[in-house]
Each structure stands twice: as structure tokens, then as C-alpha cells.
């Protein structure tokens, strides 16, 4: 026998189904890159506590390991502590993605006591002015307070920085903020261009020079902080050679539930014409996962067109993002136009060229933003 010992030791679970629960579209902030759809769902239509609790049990039985509570701002739900408790007792790993805004120390203690495993605190920048400009609200000071409270709690903390042209030069300050906190992970995720971000993309995409500089900096820092803080970095895919494997492949790993209970294969799936979605009020998750036409639509390879259909990378990136294909190519089954092999890559290149001319960089220093609105 060779070495059975090491080889069988670890493997990432092939189907670690995670559930993204968009509890509400309400949010105290108005980020210009918000990933919520342009048509936000109203408070009146939100799923009640009991249905969510039933969904958590159903999810665990379907094989889901982790639940991400997100929104909008999940803390805008008055029942958030009960939801955390119910998800944890159903056997799920509970992750909360929050702006930290409607939070005080008592509520934080209640969340931890209810079984919260991990908090992802999002930051709009390292400096007050930038952060407030991007979120369209005074929010930065409160986040620093939350960081301080977190120091005294046994809870995994990730700081999420959403990166774009206006804050990509502040990475050093962002990292310093993380190092002075109890965070063990930090995510520098460049904006993804859907929804509100797509409307604002000419003001958000970093220049190539900014991007190269940031990659170099973060590689160095990853080395320095090894074993202390894990740094994850997501580059804007407009600058990449190949697309990202969006959602780990359509209908392969993730399900998303909207505030009203519709079950989607990805955040932006509602923009794709011709897809309809089942609701948790009417169907169990296992049925939806296996049978929903929306989940089947882009699962596997049968739907692919050339060049994806015969490309060697099709099992790695699954042809990229369907919503991006729709936005840029006008066809959700097309090769994601950020791919260098895509027939429509020239559209992405044209935008990059416009952004990387010196005059445009200067002209865009005072952008006029389209701010995310709020639902009824």
C-alpha cells in the first residue's frame, strides 16, 4: 500500500449545498453597487418567521450545510435572533452578512448566544468620507463600534471590503483596520457588475494600473499575514482572461431564497427572460433543487453554445455567468463576454479602453451616482 494515510485525509465536499437567505430587501444603506435587483420586494411580502424556520429544517434534510443570512440588511428583521436560533438548531452553520447598522451590544450578545457562527461585516471603505459617499448614509463610525464589541465575543469575523475605483487605493488602510480587529479573514471583493453596479459601472471599474498595483500589494501581504489573517481577493472579471465559475456552476452548489420565498439558482436570475421560479410556500427544497425548470435550464452542458460547448475549460468555469451573458451579449446562453474566447469580448474591451484613457480617468473623479433605493 502506498500512503493511504495522507491521501484520504481531506477533500472539499463536492456538493456542500449552501443556502443564501435574503431575509429582506430593506436596508439603511444605499450602496451604488448593491447586488439586489432594481425592483425591490416590499416588507409586506416578506416570509414570516414560521415559514423560514420550516425552510431551515427542510434545507438541513436536503443536505445543506451552511446558511448565509443576507439582504438588504438582515438585521432589519426584528426576528433575526429567533431565525439564527432556528437555523442553528436545524443543524446549519450560520453566517450573517451585515452592514452592522441596526446593531447594539445587547443584540450582538443575543445573536452569539443563539448560535451565530460567523459574521461578515461589510465596509464601504477605510475612510469615513469615501464610505459614506458610497453607501449614501453615515455608517462608518457605527461599523468601528461594532468591531470593538466583536473583540470580546467568541465569533468568527470576516471583514468584507467591496472594492472599486474610488477605494482601491486604500487597501493598506483597510488591512490595518482588519489587523487591529479580531477578524481572521478579510475579503477584498471587487464589485461585480449586475443590478445597481451595472448602472454605475463606468464610475466603479478600477483602471488597469490600479488593479495591477493592488494585486502586487495583496500578494505580499498574504505572505506576511499567513496563519494570522486569511486574505481573499476577487478581481473584477472584466479584466480577467476567463470568467469566474459563477455560483460554482448553475444549480450545482447553491440555492438562493428571496425575501418573498422564491427560490433562485443565483442572485440575478430574475433578469433572465423566460425563467419562472418556485416558492417555498408551495414546494419543498429537494423538489425544487431536482425538478425546477429554472435550475435545470443551465445545469450541466447541454445548453452551451460554441465556443464553450467544446472548450476544455467548460468544467472549470461552466461558461461563466448567465446573467452577465444576458447583460452584455443579450443572450443568457451565450459565452460570458468577459471570456477572452467569447465572440463579444470586444464589448468588454471597448469599455476598458474608455476607462483607461487618461482624460476619462480624470473626468470621472466627480461621478454622479445612481443610489440604490428602498422598497415600500
Amino acid at each position, binding site marked *: 500500500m502506498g500512503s493511504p494515510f495522507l491521501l484520504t485525509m481531506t477533500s472539499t*465536499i463536492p456538493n456542500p449545498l449552501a443556502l443564501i437567505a435574503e431575509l429582506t430587501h430593506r436596508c439603511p444603506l444605499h450602496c451604488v453597487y448593491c447586488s439586489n435587483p432594481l425592483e425591490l420586494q416590499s416588507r409586506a411580502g416578506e416570509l414570516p418567521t414560521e415559514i423560514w424556520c420550516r425552510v431551515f429544517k427542510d434545507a438541513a434534510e436536503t443536505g445543506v450545510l451552511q446558511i448565509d443570512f443576507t439582504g438588504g440588511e438582515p438585521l432589519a428583521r426584528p426576528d433575526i435572533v429567533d431565525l439564527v436560533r432556528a437555523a442553528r438548531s436545524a443543524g446549519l*452553520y450560520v453566517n450573517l452578512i451585515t452592514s452592522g447598522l441596526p446593531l447594539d451590544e445587547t443584540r450582538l450578545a443575543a445573536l452569539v448566544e443563539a448560535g451565530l*457562527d460567523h459574521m461578515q461585516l461589510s465596509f464601504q471603505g477605510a475612510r469615513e468620507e469615501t464610505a459614506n459617499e458610497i453607501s449614501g448614509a453615515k455608517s462608518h463610525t457605527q461599523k468601528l463600534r461594532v468591531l470593538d464589541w466583536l473583540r470580546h465575543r467568541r465569533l468568527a469575523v470576516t471583514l468584507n471590503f467591496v472594492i472599486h475605483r474610488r477605494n482601491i487605493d486604500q487597501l493598506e488602510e483597510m488591512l490595518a483596520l482588519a489587523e487591529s480587529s479580531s477578524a481572521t479573514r478579510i475579503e477584498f471583493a471587487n464589485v461585480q457588475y449586475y443590478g445597481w453596479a451595472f448602472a454605475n459601472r463606468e464610475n466603479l471599474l478600477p483602471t488597469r494600473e490600479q488593479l495591477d498595483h493592488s494585486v502586487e500589494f495583496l500578494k505580499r501581504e498574504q505572505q506576511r499575514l499567513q496563519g494570522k489573517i486569511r486574505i481573499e481577493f476577487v478581481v473584477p472579471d472584466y479584466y480577467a482572461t476567463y470568467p469566474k465559475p459563477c455560483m460554482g456552476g448553475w444549480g450545482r452548489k447553491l440555492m438562493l431564497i428571496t425575501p418573498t420565498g422564491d427560490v433562485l439558482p443565483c442572485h440575478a436570475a430574475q433578469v433572465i427572460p423566460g425563467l419562472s421560479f418556485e416558492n417555498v410556500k408551495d414546494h419543498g427544497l429537494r423538489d425544487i433543487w431536482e425538478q425546477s425548470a429554472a435550475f435545470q435550464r443551465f445545469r450541466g452542458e447541454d445548453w452551451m453554445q460554441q465556443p464553450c460547448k467544446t472548450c476544455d475549460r467548460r468544467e472549470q468555469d461552466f461558461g461563466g455567468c448567465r446573467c452577465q451573458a444576458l447583460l452584455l451579449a443579450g443572450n443568457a446562453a451565450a459565452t460570458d463576454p468577459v471570456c477572452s474566447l467569447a465572440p463579444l469580448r470586444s464589448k468588454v474591451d471597448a469599455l476598458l479602453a474608455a476607462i483607461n484613457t487618461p482624460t476619462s480617468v480624470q473626468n470621472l473623479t466627480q461621478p454622479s451616482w445612481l443610489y440604490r433605493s428602498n422598497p415600500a
Partner: protein
Amino acid sequence: MPPELHSRPRLAPGCRLGENSQQRVLLMPERALRLNGPSLEIVERCDGQHTVEQIVRELQKIYSQAAPQKVEQDILGYLALLEERRALDFEL
């Protein structure tokens, strides 16, 4: 860096053992690791009580057909990997 033999590894906040369809897993922020045989034996002992050395000795007994040195090497490698993923704290 291999972990210090006298330190006591303990699962970091936000990392815990879980189970799903009879499969034990290590749940962590943003990812889960499937645990089988030796990896489960190791993680179960990352409780802030066992030292690295004790974990090595105990597993050498359980896996007595494997070369003791190989077992030690694999354990140190696995602990280093978990540390790199910020899944362990080492207490002295």
C-alpha cells in the same frame, strides 16, 4: 511552519464539527471539510487539552500498521494546513 509539539491546538471561533447524511465535517467560515478516519481522529483531539505530541502518540497507536514517522509527518502537515486556513488556535 510546523506546529510546536508542546502546544495545544483548539478549533478557532467559527470552526466546529458537524454532521450531514452520516458524514462528519469540519464547518468553517465559507467552506466545509469532509472528515474521514485519521482527519476526524485528529480534529476530535483539537480541544485545547491534547498537545500536538499527545495527538501524534495516540494516532500512532491507532494506526500502528503505518510507519510512525509517516503518521507524525502527516499529522503535522494537516495541522499546518488547518492553521493556514485559520481553523486552529495553538495554546501553549
